Every structure is written in structure tokens, then in C-alpha cells.
């Protein structure tokens, strides 16, 4: 890959990093990252990956931009209300960095399409907002041998872990989705917008480390942070022999959809 003078200038702050250099930037520019969910986590992740010059960014989201999104989903602007999120996000990425090719998939990731969605990408970012999607992404990535970043946020807290083949998976930690009646509803929960930004940036950093092969991935560790105390810690973990997906006696050998929560804040009764 021959960089133009403009590209050398654009990526100069990466290139001067000892661990990245021209070779690392070339790896980023050849990299393909799929972001599932173009919301609170997907927005910052997409912006940083676009700025970094990731060669192909795929965006999967079935929603349109809603006014309640604008408090944290920083890739969408007020004039984008009503647009498909993938289109709104793709337009910003193209303006930020014309080097990046953007592929948009205006759909939910479901059991019947997820294997096809992830197959052409090097790294997947789970930026979804619900457990059925998180478990589906985990299962598809483990069965398909694809590395991915899990991210979850709630109120002022966030968590992240990275899976690469051979490492502990999301089901090693969280065997199955929690009982639906215990999952906070939209009206009960909420999230500080900047917390979503913190976590999306962590996920983007994991993708860039994976593409360049530098540092230690957040594998076999769960990063947990509490933004109110501004306290971060990582909990070490190992693959779980009882994991229903990657344990000694796997019970899950294929992909299935679980019922999704209905989340419509406008109609929520307070």
C-alpha cells in the first residue's frame, strides 16, 4: 500500500507511534470492521474507526434516528431525525474520511442473516442494546471463529470484553440471557451519554489493536467501570468448562433468535 502525501499527513499521529508506524497504519487501512448497532456505542466506535482510516466499515442497524437518541448517539445530528441510522452514520463517515468504504445493512442482526453479515469482516463490534442480540453475536462469532468486542452499559456503569478464538466467550461469563422481567425497561433505566462514549471508544481501541496486532487484547478479562466513582477494574477469567457454547459438552451448536424486548420510550407509561 502506497500512502499519498495527504494520507501520510492525515495518519501522521498514528504513524509516529512506535508500535503502529507505517506498517500498522497499512494494516488499519486494509482492515474490515463490522459494527452491529449504530447507536450509543456504535456512534463513537464508528467515528474513531473512520478517523483511523479502517478500510471497510460495515454498519448494521434496523432503526431510524429518534429524538431520544441524540443525547448520546453522537454520529446522528438533529437534521437526521427519521433517517435510517445506518444512512445517517454512513454520511458522517464519508465526510470524515473519504478513504473509508462504508457498507450499510438496514436490518436487525438475526439468526438467519448474522453469519452472512460477519463473514467478510476481520473484527466485529457488538454495539447492540439488548441481550438476545448480544448472545446471538457471541454465538455467531464463536461458531464462525470471528473475534469481537462485547460492550454493555447501564446508567453510569459499563463493561467490555474481547473474544478471540480460543479465549473465554460471553457465555462463559453469562450462560444465558437473564429473565426478561428483571431486565430494566427503557423507562426505568437510562444512561449517561458520555458513558456510552467511553465504552464505544474502548471498543474502537480493541478493534485497532486487533488489526495492528499491538498490545494485549481485553481477552480472558472483563473490564468493569463505574463512571460515578470513576473507578475501573478488570476481572480475570478463564474459559468455563460448563459453557454451553465453548465448554466441554456444548449444548448450543447453531444459531437461534430469542424474543426481543419491545422498547418504545414514547409509549412507556411513567
Amino acid at each position, binding site marked *: 500500500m502506497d500512502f499519498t502525501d495527504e494520507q501520510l499527513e492525515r495518519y501522521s499521529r498514528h504513524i509516529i507511534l512506535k508500535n503502529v508506524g507505517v506498517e500498522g497504519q497499512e494494516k488499519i487501512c486494509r482492515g474490515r470492521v463490522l459494527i452491529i448497532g449504530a*447507536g450509543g456505542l456504535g456512534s463513537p466506535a464508528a467515528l474513531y474507526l473512520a478517523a483511523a482510516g479502517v478500510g471497510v466499515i460495515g454498519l448494521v442497524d434496523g432503526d431510524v434516528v*429518534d429524538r*431520544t437518541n441524540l443525547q448520546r448517539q453522537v454520529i446522528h445530528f438533529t437534521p437526521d431525525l427519521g433517517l435510517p441510522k445506518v444512512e445517517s452514520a454512513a454520511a458522517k463517515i464519508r465526510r470524515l474520511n473519504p478513504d473509508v468504504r462504508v457498507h450499510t445493512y438496514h436490518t436487525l442482526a438475526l439468526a438467519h442473516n448474522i453469519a452472512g453479515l460477519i463473514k467478510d469482516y476481520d473484527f466485529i463490534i457488538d454495539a447492540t442494546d439488548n*441481550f438476545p442480540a448480544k448472545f446471538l453475536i457471541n454465538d455467531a462469532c464463536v461458531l464462525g471463529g470471528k473475534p469481537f468486542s462485547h460492550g454493555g452499559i*447501564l446508567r453510569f*456503569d459499563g463493561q467490555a470484553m474481547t473474544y478471540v478464538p480460543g479465549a473465554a466467550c460471553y457465555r462463559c461469563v453469562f*450462560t444465558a440471557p437473564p*429473565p426478561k422481567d428483571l431486565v430494566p425497561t427503557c423507562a426505568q433505566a437510562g444512561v449517561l451519554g458520555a458513558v456510552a462514549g467511553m465504552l464505544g471508544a474502548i471498543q474502537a481501541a480493541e478493534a485497532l489493536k486487533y488489526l495492528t496486532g499491538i498490545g494485549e487484547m481485553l481477552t480472558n478479562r472483563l473490564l468493569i467501570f463505574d463512571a460515578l466513582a470513576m473507578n475501573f477494574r478488570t476481572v480475570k477469567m*478463564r474459559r468455563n468448562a460448563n459453557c454451553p457454547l465453548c465448554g466441554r459438552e456444548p449444548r448450543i451448536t447453531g444459531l437461534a433468535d430469542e424474543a426481543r424486548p419491545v422498547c418504545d420510550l414514547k409509549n412507556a407509561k411513567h
Partner: protein
Amino acid sequence: MNIIINGQAENIAGENLSVAKLLALKNVEAPDMVSVQLGGEFVPRADFETAKLKENDTVDFLYFMGGGGGGGL
């Protein structure tokens, strides 16, 4: 009994303490929303009553975090 809970050294009164009892003592309202790692091994949810803590154990409560924002995290 001295144990390390979520990275903090704590002294918990009582012997023969189960994971379920510890969750109750620590005011974890919804044990179904937490995954428990004891001494580096995940405790199956069905074993919360029978799995016991001992002196110097390390225990971590890992909470489910999915959405919250709704409408796309």
C-alpha cells in the same frame, strides 16, 4: 472470615457462608442478574445455595449489562 469481594478486602461475619447468603448480605437484589466467579471459577446459578466460601477466597459479582438506553445503546 476475610474474603476479597469485587477487588476489596472485607471481613464477613459467619462461617459456612454460601454464595446465595453472601449475595443477600451484600444486598444484591436480583441474583439472577449477576454471574459469580469464586476463586477464578464461575459458579453455576443452580449451585449458589451449595457453593461455600472459605477464608481468603476471591469472589466477583459480574452484572449483566445490556441496554438501558433503549433505542440503540
